[in-house]
């Protein structure tokens, strides 16, 4: 056989390349500079018929093959890596799970408009604590009658918030790891489904990436994709295919950089000769071409295998890891060939250099690709146990987590103020609002939830009455520029170790929370009740900052000018009594041994996290050999309930 694409494939490539050169190339720099999503380009891609390349015609697709899809992503990425990933995320992540695991009804309702390109798709798996390890998924879906109630959030979601249809992964059976995850089709616009951060990325800036927030989102039962508990399987199958898309994106970016460098090197003359013919550059081009060809062969092999429905998981992982690794090398060499000119904004090779980096990270880091490849070669690694890894607790340490939810906004604010005064905070004293964060005893910080710039007034006024300095989250200082850069609080910014921190409209990204670990008392005001900040706060009010901040300001205003604050004395952190473990333990009636799922039973081959119910019937007490039936549940007693 001849290892080559068909004429039809090359014709298709020419068609997409023409489109990319004519429709994308002229605006690519602007999209990159302005972090702008190319709505028109996506519409035109639909017209061109490339939004559902591998899907059946009866569902609105082109019924073409996986290889054509790979070529399309490659060609778009050759001109703009961002546009390439729009197609990749839409086709292999947002659409594929519905095509492969959807019911007939789901396909009619969702697959058809996606494959036609009338709607855009996205895929939501990643969470702050579930990156490479989906077992850390914290978004939950609870079945209530004819619908599931979805709560939680997703981060780094490609195509959000533009996309219309989202495949979302959530825990339906807690504490059993990845087997408890299910997949759902969720539509934009449903009540409680909102978008948080739109990220300010290093590269692929024409693609949109945002955070998803779910607050009691009602998902109809019929939108469960596959069966309950199949979510992880669906996610893994989807990512196997998605890797072909990302590999193609990496290849396209590298190919674009290569083509540009070649053109430049043949024109640029130094030492009376086009620099392309300097031996050191000849060798560069040769090496780049070897890498590109290898990558292309790996990708096309994986695509053809997928098309032929033979196992391709290892091939797509190899293609993704290799293509993205060499994309960085090729872009680096290409930029080097450009010399100082390549280092300037507006140069395509500069953009390619930045765009390429993401491809070694997303849709499974290259480290994880190697885990996948190794597992195909060597089989599953023997189980290792990492004790207690899942029970880390909140980033800011153990906090009181008292959330005022009852009563009017004013009543909730009053309860908060009373609690703070009870803790010993004196609100008759004040400090300069521009006191450096590290020196301030109290800080009122604004997050993106603050909205328009004029709302910063609310924060400033609250800071004045609370006797606090003004701070912010990173985006508010860095992207929105509401406050100077030295006023943002976080691991990478200023660290706050004073007594009172009031977070207004801050959702609580890990890096921010790490900056307030030492705070004595943390107060959160946020309209999203699932925002991580509430798990990291002593007190919280769920509500709109526009409503709560003025009330809080008023409640703290004693009608007098603030007296100068005395020297800062670190207050005591609240004592939070330890909560019982969420695991249910069982004791043996034969000896008193206690089975704790948090510990498992290593010698008995029972891994950590196995509930007592899930223990095999033949399991026996590791200490005295009694049967499973001789165990009794350890009930949890609390004297709180009696009162």
């Amino acid at each position: 056989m001849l290892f080559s694409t068909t004429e039809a494939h090359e014709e298709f490539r020419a068609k997409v390349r023409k489109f990319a050169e004519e429709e994308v190339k002229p605006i690519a720099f602007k999209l990159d500079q302005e972090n702008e999503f190319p709505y028109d380009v996506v519409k035109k891609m639909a017209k061109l018929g490339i939004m559902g390349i591998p899907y059946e015609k009866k569902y609105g697709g082109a019924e073409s093959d996986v290889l054509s899809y790979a070529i399309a992503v490659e060609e778009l990425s050759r001109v703009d890596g961002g546009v390439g990933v729009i197609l990749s995320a839409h086709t292999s992540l947002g659409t594929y799970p519905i095509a492969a695991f959807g019911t007939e009804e789901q396909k009619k309702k969702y697959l058809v408009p996606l494959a036609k390109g009338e709607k855009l798709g996205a895929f939501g798996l990643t969470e702050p604590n579930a990156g490479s390890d989906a077992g850390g998924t914290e978004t939950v879906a609870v079945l209530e009658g004819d619908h599931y109630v979805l709560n939680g959030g997703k981060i780094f979601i490609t195509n959000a918030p533009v996309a219309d249809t989202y495949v979302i992964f959530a825990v339906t059976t807690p504490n059993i790891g990845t087997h408890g995850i299910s997949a759902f089709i969720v539509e934009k616009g449903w009540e409680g489904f909102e978008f948080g951060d739109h990220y300010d990325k290093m590269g692929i800036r024409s693609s949109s990436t945002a955070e998803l927030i779910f607050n009691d989102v009602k998902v109809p039962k019929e939108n469960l994709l596959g069966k309950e508990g199949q979510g992880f399987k669906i996610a893994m199958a989807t990512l196997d295919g998605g890797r072909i898309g990302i590999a193609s994106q990496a290849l396209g970016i590298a190919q674009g950089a290569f083509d540009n460098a070649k053109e430049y090197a043949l024109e640029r003359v130094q030492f009376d000769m086009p620099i392309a013919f300097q031996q050191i550059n000849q060798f560069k081009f040769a090496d780049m071409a070897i890498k590109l060809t290898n990558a292309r062969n790996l990708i096309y092999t994986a695509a053809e295998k997928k098309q032929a429905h033979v196992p391709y998981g290892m091939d797509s992982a190899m293609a993704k890891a290799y293509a993205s690794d060499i994309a960085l090398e090729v872009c680096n060499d290409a930029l080097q060939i450009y010399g100082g000119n390549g280092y300037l904004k507006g140069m395509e090779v500069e953009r390619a250099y930045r765009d390429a980096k993401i491809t070694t990270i997303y849709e499974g880091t290259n480290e994880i690709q190697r885990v996948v490849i190794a597992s195909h070669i060597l089989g599953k690694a023997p189980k290792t146990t990492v004790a207690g890894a899942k029970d880390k607790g909140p980033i800011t340490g153990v906090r009181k987590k008292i959330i005022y939810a009852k009563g009017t906004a004013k009543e909730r604010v009053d309860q908060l103020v009373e609690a703070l005064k009870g803790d010993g905070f004196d609100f008759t004293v004040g400090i300069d609002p521009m006191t450096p964060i590290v020196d301030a005893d109290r800080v009122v910080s604004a997050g993106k939830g603050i909205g328009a710039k004029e709302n910063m007034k609310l924060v400033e006024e609250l800071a004045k009455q609370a006797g606090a300095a003004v701070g912010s989250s990173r985006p508010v200082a860095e992207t929105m520029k509401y406050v100077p850069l030295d006023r943002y609080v976080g691991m990478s910014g200023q660290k706050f170790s004073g007594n009172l921190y009031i977070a207004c409209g801050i959702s609580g990204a890990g890096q921010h929370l790490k900056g307030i670990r030492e705070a004595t008392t943390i107060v959160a005001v946020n309209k999203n009740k699932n925002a991580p900040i509430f798990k990291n706060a002593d007190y919280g009010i769920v509500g709109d900052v526009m409503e709560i901040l003025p009330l809080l300001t008023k409640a703290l205003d004693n009608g007098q000018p603030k007296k100068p604050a005395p020297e800062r004395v670190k207050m005591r952190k609240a004592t939070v009594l330890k909560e019982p473990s969420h695991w249910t333990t069982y004791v043996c009636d034969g000896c008193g041994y206690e089975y704790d799922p948090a510990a498992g039973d290593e010698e008995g081959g029972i891994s950590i996290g196995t509930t007592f119910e899930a223990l095999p019937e033949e399991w026996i007490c590791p200490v005295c050999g009694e049967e499973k039936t001789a165990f009794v549940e350890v009930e949890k007693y609390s004297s709180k309930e009696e009162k």
Partner: protein
Amino acid sequence: MQCTRKVTEDLYWVGANDKRLHLFESAHPIEGGVSYNSYLLLDEKTALFDTADWSVGKQFLENVEYVLDGRKLDYLVINHLEPDHAASIGEIVLRYPEVKVVSTEKAWLLMNQFQFRIDEEKFVEVKEGDSMSFGKHNIAFVAAPMVHWPEVMVSFDTTDGILFSADAFGSFKSLDGALFADEVDFKGEWIDEARRYYTNIVGKYGPQVMALLKKASTLDIKCICPLHGPVWRKDIPWIIDKYVHWATYTPEEKGIVIAYASMYGNTMSAAHILASKLHEKGFHNVKMYDVSETHVSFLISEAFKYSHLALFSVTYNLNVFPAMQNFIDDMKRLNLQKRVIGIVENGSWAPQALDLMAKSFDEMKQMTVLNEQVSVLSSVTKMTDRELDGLADSLIESMKQDY
């Protein structure tokens, strides 16, 4: 010469007291002695409930012989096979060869292991839900596994409402002629020893004790006959309430047990400073112990009683002082939970005790170590004095909360 007492019309206490034993189980000091209770029922058939330790065998055998008054012994019901109650089984079987021994399957295995040599045809195996009639009296058997040992059962006389409760509801201290709890100052003189007995002997098995109490709550109990200490016929809900506290690891009182390990008095001084501050601030329910001078069984008993602990330890060979470590380990072994703990370390060149103590408590259930941890360098300074003040505030403040 016999020394017996009548429990009811046809039930007799035939046990005996030991005031010479220093260490119960060779572990726990018992200055007040201990009683080994055995009960003899005279019905159409005669039935002996458990025996006594061999150390008091002579008295026990005389008592049985006297109460039987020439009748033969038909049954020996063994609720608990631990040798402080079962050691005289062999002698009973020798003296009354026709006696049938009634107990659980596991007790049978243990009897053989201890080589009490019972003929298999003389053994009657019973299990949960079985009952036997001795004439007027009907005895129901209730499994009570791990209410100290796995073979344990309790026997309930449905006719008179008498519960033969094995080790449950037992106590240290010899009876000295008394039989009923209402004949002694139980709430004053006895309760501490009852608690020390329960927490050190059965403390670990709270879940199983709760399971037994749940079963018992369905019975109309008029009298509890334990294997140690006095018989309960009045105020039964009071002692059951104590058991619920102990078995669920719920403190009886809001109070602070200060325990310190001090080599040259500096750590002791820190402990006294804290205690003074507590009183100064108006909190008076404070107990103080030197762990080197106090047997750990007393410390355990206090830890079960009170809601808070303040532990002071020197660093010793880069570890917690052995006596203190033993106290902490014993708490862990006995499954103590739900306590709030203040910790203070002392060290002169490399203090280690704080982190090690905190780590130990982290491995236990719901043990909250206060944030205000104090590290003393050799002796208390102005600075550490202020920290002790913070610890005192934190201890008092945290009293407001319940688990």
